[in-house]
């Protein structure tokens, strides 16, 4: 494994790990706030237990997110010093604001976690909301920094020299809005479905039913609304991408040849040598419509770009298909849930529905990982799109593959132990319930 690939793999691994915890850290406070609100207004003990159980889970996951995020802030320099040397002063603005947001989040979390029975109950509740607000702000800011890598602006570039730097303009790059919107909604649907799936399992098994049922309903309502909104933001992203990074769009769609009335490809196997996708369903004109709002407009294919600037097409394409598939399934289930919960009320007792929700527990997170794969792999070979290649950014320090192997081990271990500890949280609640019943 060469150093560049090792550095990319280590970065990808760290990001893939961190993103799960950041999503949960952004969204859980809001889910928790609903339960907390119900406890404050109804005084129903089950909501108190629910809020507390969730908040303990959040504390664990938040710390995992915080420490893995600290790692990333150093890894940028450890792995990509030549990128940071130039990019730091340009795209650092969102990071410096994120520092504040993250700080507020940590302060609010301190108040929230240790503040039960210490403060006014609405002040305490608001601290929970504040954790969520600052978490989402951090998320938006970090994505804005990534947006700059996809759509670099706010500087002039001649012969390897960056001049006329304007950090504000760099932060408000063309990509930040569509990317941040897509990410935040994704976080809400992934976390909503993830949490709902776990509680659905315990509800299905008959552990402490009223508790798990309330948990399940709150989480799935939030997840479903987000899953339902996501296609709109996806459409904004596609149109934006067609303008900014047509090459990435072409790679996502495995759209080899420029053509009018371009078809949308669903499924199939990419045949790189023959430059086509075999066995796929093709919807004529749909890609033209999604990219440009017109069934006839030409969509640029990979043939428009020099071969040495192509991203890895197979990975980008499949990752995109996986993301969309997960999104569609969640949207359909969310739709069924919202409608039937509103009209019929009994959907939660339908076994097939619970099965589906349990099976979909990891779906949102798979979509998030796949989506980031599209964004990052789809930008290759560039680290700053059109300006600096990833191979020119990597550290000179040899032997990064050993760090990579070691961190694979570390992250696997952490994943196992976090999963184990979260299971213990739920097991504990179920046992408490059983012992109180007997």
């Amino acid at each position, binding site marked *: 494994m060469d150093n560049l690939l090792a550095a990319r793999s280590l970065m990808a691994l760290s990001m893939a790990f961190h993103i799960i915890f950041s999503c949960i850290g952004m969204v859980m406070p809001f889910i928790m706030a609903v339960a907390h609100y119900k406890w404050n207004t109804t005084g129903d003990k089950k909501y108190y237990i629910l809020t507390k159980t969730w908040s303990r889970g959040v504390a664990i996951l938040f710390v995992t997110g915080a420490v893995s995020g600290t790692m990333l802030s*150093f890894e940028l*320099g450890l792995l990509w010093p030549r990128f940071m040397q130039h990019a730091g002063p340009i795209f650092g603005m969102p990071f410096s604001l994120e520092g504040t947001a993250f700080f507020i989040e940590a302060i609010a979390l301190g108040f929230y976690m240790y503040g039960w029975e210490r403060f006014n109950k609405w002040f305490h509740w608001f601290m929970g909301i504040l954790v969520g607000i600052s978490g989402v702000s951090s998320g938006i800011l970090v994505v804005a920094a990534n947006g700059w890598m996809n759509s670099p602006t706010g500087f002039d570039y001649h012969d390897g020299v960056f001049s006329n730097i304007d950090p504000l303009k760099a932060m408000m790059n063309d990509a930040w809005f569509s990317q941040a919107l897509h990410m935040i909604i994704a976080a809400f649907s992934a976390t909503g479905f993830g949490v709902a799936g776990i509680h659905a399992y315990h509800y299905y098994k008959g552990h402490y039913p009223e508790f798990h049922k309330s948990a399940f309903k709150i989480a799935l309502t939030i997840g479903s609304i987000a899953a339902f909104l996501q296609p709109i933001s996806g459409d904004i992203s596609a149109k934006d991408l067609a303008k900014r990074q047509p090459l990435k769009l072409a790679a996502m769609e495995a759209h080899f040849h420029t053509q009018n009335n371009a078809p949308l490809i669903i499924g199939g196997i990419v045949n790189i040598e023959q430059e086509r996708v075999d066995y796929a369903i093709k919807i004529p004109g749909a890609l033209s419509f999604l990219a440009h709002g017109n069934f006839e407009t030409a969509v640029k294919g990979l043939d428009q770009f020099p071969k040495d600037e192509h991203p890895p097409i197979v990975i980008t394409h499949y990752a995109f298909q996986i993301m969309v598939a997960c999104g569609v399934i969640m949207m359909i289930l969310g739709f069924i849930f919202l409608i039937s919960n509103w009209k019929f009320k009994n959907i939660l007792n339908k076994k097939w529905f619970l099965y589906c929700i349990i099976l979909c527990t990891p779906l949102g997170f798979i979509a998030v990982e796949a989506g980031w794969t599209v964004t990052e792999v789809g930008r290759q070979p560039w680290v700053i799109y059109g300006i600096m290649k990833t191979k020119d950014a990597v550290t000179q*320090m040899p032997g990064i593959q050993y760090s990579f192997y070691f961190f694979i081990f570390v992250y696997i271990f952490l994943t196992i132990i976090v999963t184990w500890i979260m299971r213990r*949280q739920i097991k504990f609640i179920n046992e408490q319930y059983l012992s109180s019943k007997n």
Partner: protein
Amino acid sequence: MLSIVILFFWVSVLLYILLGGADFGAGILEIFVGDKNKTKVRTITYNTIGPVWEANHMWLIISVVILFVAFPSIYTSITTYLHIPIMILLLGNLARGMAFIFRHYDAYQDEKSQRFYNFIFMISSLVTSFFMGVIAGSIVGHQMQATSNSFLDTYIFSWLTPFSIATGILCVIVFAFLASTFLIGESTTEEDKAYFRKKSFIFSISVFVWGGIALLIAKVTGVPFIQEKIFISWSTLSFICSSISLLVYWKFIYSSKKWRARIAASSVIMWMLVTTALFVHPEVVTFKDQIGLNFINSAAHPLTIYYLGWALVLGSIFIIPGVVHLIASFQTKS
């Protein structure tokens, strides 16, 4: 604006050493206290540091962000030459944060898993603090070798040197000193107070003794700043301030007002930091084989500095009252 950014950088570093240091020190103390006192340390740590420790560690993030936004060559040279100790530091930080949170939030507080978390927490507190000192020592102590072509010289012997190891140990002692001072005020019984007072006293002497040894090692191994500057400069004055603070501190550890000893102890450490900074002035990052970097020659574009300065000023309007209120809310009521 550049001076505001530099000021914020030093304040964040100082606060990280004091607050984050006390926090690391609590883990180190657990190693150095007898078995029967371990639970005591743990309980007090949980009650007082639990709510604030996340916020304490934010100062590290702020310092790092300032570095990579405003002084990119400082950031990238540190992350290049000190790649390995930084990796270890990060790993230690990861393990420590997770162990701390696990041992308090694990739904089942059984002995086996608690013993495991405690073990990880203590070891990682020690290792992380040590490597933090190693990194600091390498940065200020003319240890990094930028022009060498050999892997060993560039990536290993830039930090694996007698002086850096000495500063690593010093850092461990400083953190233990801060933690034990902090815990005097949080103890509820007179017996506990006396216990931590004694610990804190011993560590305060160790700080100075080991500090002397570190200087001696610097002298022997030929760290440039020692020969040139030790007796003649502002650093001498700030060293005297540090010593005076120590005397004041020895008086204040018996005071019933807990903040007196804390402020005195913080002042000891603050003046030590100032002394070190003055030793290497005008450089900030020093190399063995080339001219070092400072905040002026490595500063980013003025507009970047301008916006960063404003972001920091505006941010601190939100952060500082929040942090103060948070720390004040969770003090042990005396």
